[in-house]
């Protein structure tokens, strides 16, 4: 077995054991992470492999969700399928709508393709609240998970295992797809469409096919969300969802199969954990995206690949100080930045400004942050983030220097090796 296989086996075993260690709230967060991972992976097929940047993938996710909720409510609430098979309805819903939308949008490529997908998604989003019978208006459609196959599906753990099984199956299928001749042709679609056409392939048909597969798996993800939430609302068609799958995919890395899965899981957990702590969490999410795009264009997965490459070039022992310095710099800059943002946000908030102006003494009341009271007028308060940021920047410079020295050493070693061994050309 290759190390990758052992790693994957370990992850699957850990995921299987997860519910016995976590609170129901965290198990539910894990469900959301799995669903986001599947959605991002389905999106990656279209965006990463076929090179078609879609800005409206929420449409297929949402169609899958509504197909599932109506399947659950069919036949007087007993359901069209047993509960564990419900996401199949999502696959059909997402795939069918994907065929319709894909037929039109894949007639164009690049920016035009992106704009058409965006237009179709917005069309659905604008239309949905008016079709009350289908999309339930503002209150949405609600359903109940029925017991099936000896399970009640009443507890979060049972839903977790159902979601895990579906996500594992779909990710395996998506991976196997990349190994098929069709999967290789998908890459060709990204690299050189003209050449494919010249070789006699029907590129429009091929693009529709990829689009439908991607939409179908997005629909499964939507169906899983509905099975978990037992409700669907037209808000699912919101551009916010289309944007977040793009962000997740790019943050994770758009060139590697596991990248979007990693990005989506991490960002979903980030939203779950941080949104209750601070109302500025969207700012952090955006800042993270910008930083990843600026310094790691291949995403988080690309970072691991880069570190692996450096390890084989410089050796593990020489790389450890660099990794420690870089981690330290990241933590300090992150801590300093978060402190400054949280402090400013509290200081500039309406509530605080009103309290301060009501204060007769004319002094600034202290602001509570990280279990301490800070006075906004004291220079010491602002010295904390300034020190953290400066120290972080210092460590970052050191890390760069260390890396440069490693590269120089490698070059001088190579030069020495070339000098000591007479060249073949001689």
């Amino acid at each position: 077995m290759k190390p990758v296989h052992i790693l994957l086996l370990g992850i699957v075993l850990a995921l299987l054991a997860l519910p016995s260690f976590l609170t129901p709230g965290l198990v539910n967060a894990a469900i959301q992470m799995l669903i986001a991972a599947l959605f991002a992976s389905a999106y990656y097929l279209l965006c990463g492999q076929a090179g078609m940047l879609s800005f409206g993938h929420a449409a297929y996710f949402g169609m899958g969700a509504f197909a599932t909720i109506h399947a659950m409510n069919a036949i007087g609430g007993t359901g069209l399928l047993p509960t564990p098979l419900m996401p199949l309805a999502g696959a059909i819903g997402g795939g069918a709508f994907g065929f319709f939308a894909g037929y039109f949008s894949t007639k164009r490529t690049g920016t035009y393709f992106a704009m058409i997908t965006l237009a179709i998604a917005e069309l659905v989003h604008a239309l949905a609240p008016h079709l009350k019978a289908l999309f339930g208006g503002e209150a949405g459609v609600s359903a109940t998970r029925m017991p099936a196959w000896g399970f009640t599906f009443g507890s979060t753990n049972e839903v977790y295992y159902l979601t895990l099984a579906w996500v594992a199956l779909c990710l395996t299928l998506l991976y196997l797809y990349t190994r098929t001749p069709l999967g290789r042709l998908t890459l060709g679609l990204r690299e050189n469409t003209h050449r494919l056409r010249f070789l006699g392939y029907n590129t429009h048909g091929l693009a529709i096919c990829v689009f439908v597969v991607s939409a179908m798996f997005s629909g499964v993800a939507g169906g899983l969300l509905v099975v978990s939430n037992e409700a669907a609302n037209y808000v699912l068609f919101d551009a916010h969802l289309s944007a977040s799958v793009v962000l997740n995919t790019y943050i994770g890395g758009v060139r590697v199969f596991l990248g979007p899965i990693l990005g989506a899981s991490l960002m979903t957990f980030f939203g779950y954990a941080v949104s209750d702590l601070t109302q500025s969490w969207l700012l952090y999410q955006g800042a993270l995206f910008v930083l990843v795009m600026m310094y790691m264009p291949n995403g988080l997965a690309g970072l691991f690949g880069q570190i692996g490459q450096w390890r084989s070039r410089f050796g593990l022992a020489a790389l450890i100080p660099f990794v420690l310095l870089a981690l330290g710099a990241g933590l300090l800059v992150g801590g300093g930045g978060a402190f400054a943002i949280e402090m400013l946000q509290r200081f500039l908030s309406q509530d605080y400004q009103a309290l301060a102006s009501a204060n007769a003494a004319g002094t600034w009341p202290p602001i509570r942050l990280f279990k301490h009271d800070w006075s906004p007028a004291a220079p010491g308060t602002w010295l904390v983030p300034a020190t953290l940021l400066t120290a972080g920047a210092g460590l970052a410079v050191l890390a760069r220097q260390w890396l440069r020295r490693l590269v120089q050493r490698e070059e001088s070693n190579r030069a020495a090796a070339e000098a000591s061994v007479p060249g073949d050309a001689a």
Partner: protein
Amino acid sequence: MKPYRQIAGGLVAMYLGTGMALAAPLKFGIIDTLSGPQSSTGQLYRNAMRFVVDHINSNGGWNGEPVQLLEYDNQGGPAGAADKLKAAISDGVQIVGQGASSAISAQISEDVRKYNMRNPGKEVVFINMGGDALELTGEKCHFHHFRVSGNAPVKIKAMVLTMKEEGVLGTKVYSINQNYSWGQDMEQAIVDAASFGGYAVVEKTLHDTNKIQDFSPYVAKIAASKAETVMTGNWSNDLLLLMKASKAAGLKVRFGAVFLDQPGNIANAGEVALGHYIAHTFNAEHASPESEKFVKDFTAKMGHFPQFIEPQGTWGMMLVAEALKNVKAEKGVLNVNTLAKTLETTKIKSPLGEMSMRAADHQAQLPFAVSVVSKAAKYKQDGTDMGFKLLKVYRAEEIASPVQASCRMQRPN
């Protein structure tokens, strides 16, 4: 017996002893939109819940312990609310509050119903502070959902009665609303009020929600209809742009708008807002010792006088606080079913008058105030020289709307 065993036994006994004396504190949870573009309203509901939880704790808490408030950000949508409800329940929250958006209220209400059905003995209760869609107390009503705010028929009735009394209503009314459950409820209420308001609805319009940038075509329609009064449930940009367009067109018309007091509205609308009417749950200039005390206490804690939905959130939760006084702990914890039954018969004296809960559909019966935008108002809005001048206060029974026939509530035995 060896000494260490005695020590261990003693420790176990102490642990059990403290466990009994100090049961887990009662937890309130707010699951509202606390970040993103729609967060301003959610944060006001949070102010209300913080105020009431502090109030309970300054009066000795519940069961001899301070109660806790846990805050969850639903990230602006029903799906996020469903996640955060599960998180809240797993954190031990028993009383859930929310108010911004009927869509989110519907999700939480349904999820609470299903959770309670599957987990008897571990019920939670949902206090809906502002999801005004009628179906939540109609076909979707259930035993563990309580709406402590008003609804479309109540607000319209209060507004129509006052405007008629003031002689500004006229006989031609134009109804313009957003095309979703709330706007449709409002339109129905405006049509239904025509009989006692003595007016005719000359035209009804339902338009897209918060998407329209230019209301001038609608204003042209209003002008053509010769309406004297425009009634609307619009909020946020839809209200603001509608009023601005009517000013730009020189339309001589009076507005009756129930969300006119949303912070920022008056500042944005400017002089256009003068002379328009509103029905709301509280007006800070109401002259009574209770109102003055409430305004003083609230301002001291929050830095501004209670406005927009803060009073309805606060007094809705005060109703829960009052009910809690009459519920004893069972084995150190709250029995939510007992609380819900007690809540059905609870009455409090809110600043505007008596407030109670109707058992049949869990729709709170609360007094309403009707005010007009004026420069003579005592409390100015948004730093302008305008504010809401209080005209009239209605007792709950004067404006109550009947129980909807679609509500079939299942009660626990």
